């Protein structure tokens, strides 16, 4: 308690003078400066620069002191398709908000971005619109930074020429929220980013992933929407990722999936909705994950879980009207399927306890046949397949015996 009091006192004594001393500069016709670069050069640390309505053809704006830059409506910074950053921030505690940043060119030598943070902490990037830029926001060795309410849009045609909307590398404690990201390669790209929170973003129509994790640990993403990306979310080589209440919608195509899990462990996948994806979840080398209370509706394949996935718990999920419920390439299963609702379940519940009396095998024979002969997809819903299916369900020979849900639900799991 005493420590806390001291901290508050310290905070007050440090914060108040800077607040009182900070000056406010106006940029624009009739303001203090005509260019933003001049204003940044002249400003003292902790000054506030207000950019007024107008077109500013500026780039490589180096911010190496703590400044607050806000734009009035109609303030546009245009890089004229040159392959250079618009803002390069190397100082802590910089705030940039309200800008429209556009036309950062594509380069194969340098990943130029509308806003780049390099080794800067405690930044706030909010309410910006970034259009037609190679990379939107680029975070390099950054921590404790808040990226919110930005709208980042491009219309790339090819993946190789495309940059990411929000790109974070070797960072930690980021908070990325309420952004709209579209038309880039990845909506959000995380590489070596730890302890971060991604929430309420809308990432759609990106060429590769809506959200992409590489080598990132202890992150969480909640309540995001991933729609119509080449693939919804890819989580690779990462540990302890929490994935909750996201919507994976209509990620559709020959090699598409809602959520790709590759070499990841100890994560949680809860209360997500997977609707109309070619593959809901594709898991390869995923270990000790808890998948519960998710909703899988009308996917081509709800879960494709490879034989190298161990000790995952798949419980209390609803599988509704998926063409294939579970697909695997192994005869064995080292994962636990329990208390899920399967719309393909035909069993009964004599004692009326809500749990089916007959175990359910979600892998069906047809999934196995099409795995071996892809051309057999032609026979989907054929009577002969239904007959074989009945025979196989009664006397299992080919489908993995161990992959069963021993207590399938009779009614769908209902959320609170």
């Amino acid at each position, binding site marked *: 308690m005493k420590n806390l009091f001291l901290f508050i006192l310290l905070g007050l004594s440090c914060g108040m003078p800077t607040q009182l001393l900070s000056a406010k500069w106006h940029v624009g016709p009739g303001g203090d400066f005509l260019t933003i670069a001049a204003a940044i050069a002249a400003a003292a640390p902790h000054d506030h620069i207000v950019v007024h309505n107008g077109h500013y053809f500026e780039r490589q704006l180096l911010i190496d002191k703590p400044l607050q830059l806000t734009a009035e409506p109609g303030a546009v910074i245009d890089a004229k398709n040159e392959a250079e950053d618009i803002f390069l921030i190397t100082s802590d505690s910089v705030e940039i908000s309200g800008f429209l940043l556009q036309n950062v060119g594509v380069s194969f030598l340098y990943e130029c971005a509308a806003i780049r943070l390099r080794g800067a902490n405690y930044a706030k990037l909010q309410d910006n619109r970034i259009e037609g830029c190679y990379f939107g926001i680029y975070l390099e060795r950054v921590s404790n930074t808040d990226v919110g309410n930005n709208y980042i849009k491009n219309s790339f045609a090819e993946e190789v020429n495309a940059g990411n909307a929000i790109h974070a590398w070797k960072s930690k404690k980021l908070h990325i929220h309420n952004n709209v990201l579209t038309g880039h390669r990845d909506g959000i790209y995380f590489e070596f980013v730890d302890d971060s929170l991604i929430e309420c973003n809308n990432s759609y129509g990106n060429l590769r992933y809506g959200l992409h994790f590489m080598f990132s640990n202890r992150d969480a993403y909640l309540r995001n929407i991933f729609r119509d990306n080449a693939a919804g979310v890819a989580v690779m080589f990462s540990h302890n990722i929490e994935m909750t209440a996201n919507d994976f919608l209509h990620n*559709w195509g*020959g090699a598409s999936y809602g959520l790709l899990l590759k070499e990841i462990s100890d994560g949680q996948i809860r209360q997500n909705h997977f609707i109309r994806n070619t593959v809901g979840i594709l898991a390869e080398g995923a270990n000790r994950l808890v998948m519960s209370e998710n909703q899988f509706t009308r996917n081509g394949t709800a879960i494709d879980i490879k034989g190298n996935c161990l000790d995952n718990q798949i419980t209390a999920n609803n599988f509704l009207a998926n063409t294939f419920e579970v697909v695997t390439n192994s005869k064995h299963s080292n994962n636990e399927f329990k208390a899920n609702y399967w719309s393909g379940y035909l069993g009964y519940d004599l004692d009326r306890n809500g749990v089916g009396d007959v175990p359910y095998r979600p892998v069906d024979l047809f999934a196995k046949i099409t795995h*071996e002969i892809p051309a057999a997809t032609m*026979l989907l819903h054929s*009577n*002969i397949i239904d*007959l074989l299916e009945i025979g196989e369900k009664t006397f299992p020979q080919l489908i993995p015996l161990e992959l069963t849900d021993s207590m399938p639900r009779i009614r769908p799991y209902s959320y609170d």
Partner: protein
Amino acid sequence: MFNISKIIVQDLWKNKAVIAYGILMLTFGWGIFAIEYQSEKAILSLLRVILFVQPLITLLFAGMYYYNSQEFLLLLAAQPIKRKTLFLGVFAGLSTVFTLIFLLSIGVPVLVFSPTVEGLALLLAGGLLIFVFTAIALLVSVHVNDKARGMGFALLVWSFFAFIYDGLLLLFMYQFAEYPIERPVLGLTFLNPIDIARIFVISKTEASALLGLSGAVFQNFFGALQGAIAAIFMLLVWASLPFALAYRKFVRKDL
């Protein structure tokens, strides 16, 4: 022709088997939408009915009706009525009744609860299958004079199209799995009206599972307009070919 059809329709309308079949189909059609709140799943359940129950009933009932009304046909043939008119009348009467039952029991609920592309594809495919199997039934009955043998043969035809053909196709695919067999398989499905109808509807509904490497071949074909037209055309061929053959036989036959 229309008079004969009218008489046949009126006769069939009072037939107990037709009434039972109508009630069965009505329960299917309306019941599935009452139970299933997801219309796409309901469409799939109805697809099963259309591919399984309907061809069987159409085949058996049309054949049976032909055999049972042989004396009536003989009587009419003694009148100054052309054989052509007589045969067309029988075919039109039978298919009208089946189409009416189909539209009332499955058509109306689909249009009410799920008036989507897949729903319309289902109705189109189901409607065409009625004509296909009525024609096949008449072909069988015209050729086989003995009722029991005729019915047995109709059953065989049904099980061939409903199960055996697909089983052979699966066997074929297993044998030639190492080869690029997508296109040959695509061609082979055209030799079975039930397969054409099934894939035509599925390509409109569960495109996701058909995607993937070889699914793309089918999807590109059936998903596109020309594929849909080809499927409908083939179903029409499947209806008109047995019809033409049965007609040829009927015109020359010693009744």
